[in-house]
């Protein structure tokens, strides 16, 4: 005989995530931080690693505070940071302008695709840092040679991303524009460029990382008054805590640039909901 309805409760049950997937972001970040610093503290405290190679977390913290107070009180480090900031800013600006223009040339015209692109690929495969002595020879030891190296490194990802973005419009979309009598310029402005924006911003993010590397490398190799020169100077004095804290402050500059790009992308590419690795895209 079948059981009556009351014999069973509702079949309600919960799907459970594993513990590691349930930790909220702030706690997860804090946890990882504690683990890494704990291990760091352990290896230095136990004397497993020489303090010249790896300072203790406490030494590093003290130096962070020192450098921070120097920066906030307008000391010599602030002017160095400002020099590097300017280098990065100009480098990025030049890279965006040249990269976008070349990207449009390559992505929109057959001539660009056939004639320009092969040379760009050839140059892109060269180790671009090797050009630093040339830039110094051409532009001197001042900020200009560092800007040039930074821009040089950051240009290529923008070219490739812009060109790829211009190819991203589908066959149907192109046919639609053709069928409504759009000119080439209209198709570029109203279809291809907007469609390519997400690609363009991906290129900008890669360029934002590259421009930092270029600026610092330039300062390593060409001296000058930037943060890169300070780092090299501290390293040669075996002041490892200082190197650590300078790198940390420098990373703030990189983060600021990166998230400016991310924020701009969110403003302009509001319709694109792909790429959901939170905090990165």
């Amino acid at each position, binding site marked *: 005989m079948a059981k009556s309805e009351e014999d069973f409760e509702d079949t309600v049950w919960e799907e459970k995530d594993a513990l590691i997937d349930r930790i909220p972001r702030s706690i997860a970040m804090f946890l990882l931080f504690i683990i890494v610093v704990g291990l760091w503290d352990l290896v230095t405290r136990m004397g497993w690693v020489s303090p010249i190679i790896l300072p203790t977390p406490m030494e590093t913290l003290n130096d962070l505070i020192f450098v921070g107070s120097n920066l906030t009180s307008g000391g010599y480090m602030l002017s160095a940071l400002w020099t590097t900031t300017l280098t990065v800013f100009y480098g990025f600006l030049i890279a965006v302008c040249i990269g976008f223009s070349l990207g449009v040339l390559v992505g929109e015209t057959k001539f660009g695709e056939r004639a320009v692109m092969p040379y760009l690929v050839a140059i892109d495969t060269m180790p671009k840092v090797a050009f630093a002595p040339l830039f110094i020879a051409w532009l001197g030891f001042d900020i200009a040679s560092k800007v040039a190296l930074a821009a040089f490194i950051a240009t290529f990802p923008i070219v490739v991303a812009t060109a790829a973005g211009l190819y991203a419009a589908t066959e149907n979309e192109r046919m*639609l*524009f053709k069928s*409504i009598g759009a000119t080439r310029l209209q198709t570029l402005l109203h279809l291809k460029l907007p469609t390519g924006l997400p690609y363009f911003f991906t290129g900008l993010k890669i360029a934002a990382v590259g421009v930092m590397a270029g600026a610092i490398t330039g300062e390593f190799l060409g001296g000058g008054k930037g943060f890169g020169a300070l780092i090299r100077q501290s390293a040669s004095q075996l002041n490892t805590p200082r190197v650590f804290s300078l790198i940390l402050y420098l990373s703030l500059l990189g983060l600021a640039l990166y998230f400016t790009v991310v924020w701009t992308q969110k403003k302009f590419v509001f319709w694109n909901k792909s790429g959901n690795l939170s905090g990165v895209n």
Partner: protein
Amino acid sequence: MSELSNNLKLAPEKMGPVFEIERLTKTFARQNVTALSNVELTIKKGEFVSVIGSSGCGKSTLLKIMAGLLPPTQGRVLLEGQPVRGPSSHIGMMFQQATLLPWKNTVENVLLPISIREGTAAAKKAYDHAVSLLELVGLGGFTKAYPGELSGGMAQRASICRMLVSNPSMLLLDEPFSALDELTRDFMNMELQRICMEKEATTFLVTHSLAEAVILSDRILVMQSRPGRVVEDVSIDLPRPRTLEMINTPYFGEIVAHIRALLAKDGNAANS
């Protein structure tokens, strides 16, 4: 059955042709392929004509030539007596995908042909017209919605409006609902019929679906491949408005069987 069809048949023979194609041939020199061979076609005002055939039979090429997107190799292509030598505002097109621009809202997407052809000011003037079109297809409440917020069927309805916004004299549809699920597709086909009747539109439809072609069309051109050519011009004597129930009538079954046999012949030829 035959009594019904005789009484309610459309009488397009009284009106002049909207579209005329004579001895149209298209060869692609690069691949050495004859995509179309000696195609003859006359479409009268208010007529709904479909073309059906296996993939690669040249039906999309035919549509592109009619739209002025591809030049013919030989023959004459006339829209309202004028030769077609490029895209024209008298032609409205619809594609397999809705192809709405995701950064424009629904009404801006509908107005795209006008803003491209005549500029922003003209588009602003046509705003009310676009909204009334959206109301016609049941999207009156979605004028400000972005394509990302529309379902597949709704997006295709918006693209119907975009096709209609410049009041074209000829509609060209390239498998417009084939990306939709079958229930939505049936519904959209009935909507398309209603809109075409309301607008007295002259329509040319490329499709893979036999049932869709029969239920919508006054005439069906059956194409075979290698070289692409029209092998039969089948008239469909079903009264308007057509309903989905007609699919179950013997007449419908006979026509479908007849066309299927023609297509199967081509399939055998292609496989041999």
